[in-house]
């Protein structure tokens, strides 16, 4: 394995795990549930993408590359779906937006009415 490939793999590994750490810090520090979800899903998925690319480069066999691409594609399909489902149910349950956020298009359009028991304490 040449030195250039090793350096590329090392940079991919460090950047990917740094993105995972940034996702965790975003979950800790963001002021709002929806912002926290945004930080966790996008940065976490990007970090695992970088690490899986590093693994595919490191092993170099067809099987490892195919497995890495399959995990990347599956993760990038399912993470937004899970986040969307969770955000929709949180909005129905009446989780408040940050008090300094400006627009709430769902409230204006009235497409997702809160359920009856949304005032109930979670």
């Amino acid at each position, binding site marked *: *394995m040449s*030195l250039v490939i*090793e*350096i590329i*793999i*090392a*940079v991919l*590994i*460090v950047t*990917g*795990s*740094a993105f*995972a*750490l940034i*996702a*965790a*810090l975003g*979950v*800790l520090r963001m002021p709002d*549930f929806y912002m*926290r*979800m945004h930080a*966790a*899903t996008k940065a*976490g*998925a990007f*970090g*695992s993408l970088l*690490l*899986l690319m*590093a*693994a595919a480069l*490191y*092993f170099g*066999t067809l*099987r*490892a590359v195919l*497995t*890495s691409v*399959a*995990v990347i594609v*599956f*993760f990038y399909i*399912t*993470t937004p*779906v*899970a*986040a969307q*489902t*969770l955000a*929709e*149910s*949180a909005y*129905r*349950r009446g*989780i408040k937006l940050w008090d300094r956020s400006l627009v709430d298009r769902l409230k204006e359009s009235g497409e997702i009415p809160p*359920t009856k*028991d949304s005032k*109930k304490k*979670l």
Partner: protein
Amino acid sequence: MFFEDISTIIGAALAIALCFLLLALGVALWRIVRAESDFDRVIALDLIGGICLCCLVVFAIGFNQAVLLDSAFALAVMSYLGTVAFARYLERGND
């Protein structure tokens, strides 16, 4: 063995990556313990699934075992199903 037959550059990168991932796991666990609502806990749990996937990939490189990538795929599937199930359960409420 970990770090066996591996170059110095990749070994140092793996050590740094493991430190970062451990710190991220700690932060997400702290978020689960001190959360404002149950939805925050589900988000942190989803993030822990992603971080565990990252840890599996790092172990796959470190132990030179490409089989661990398959278990990363299984972990991605289970994490997605768990998050969707928790979302449906929390939407329904206590009744």
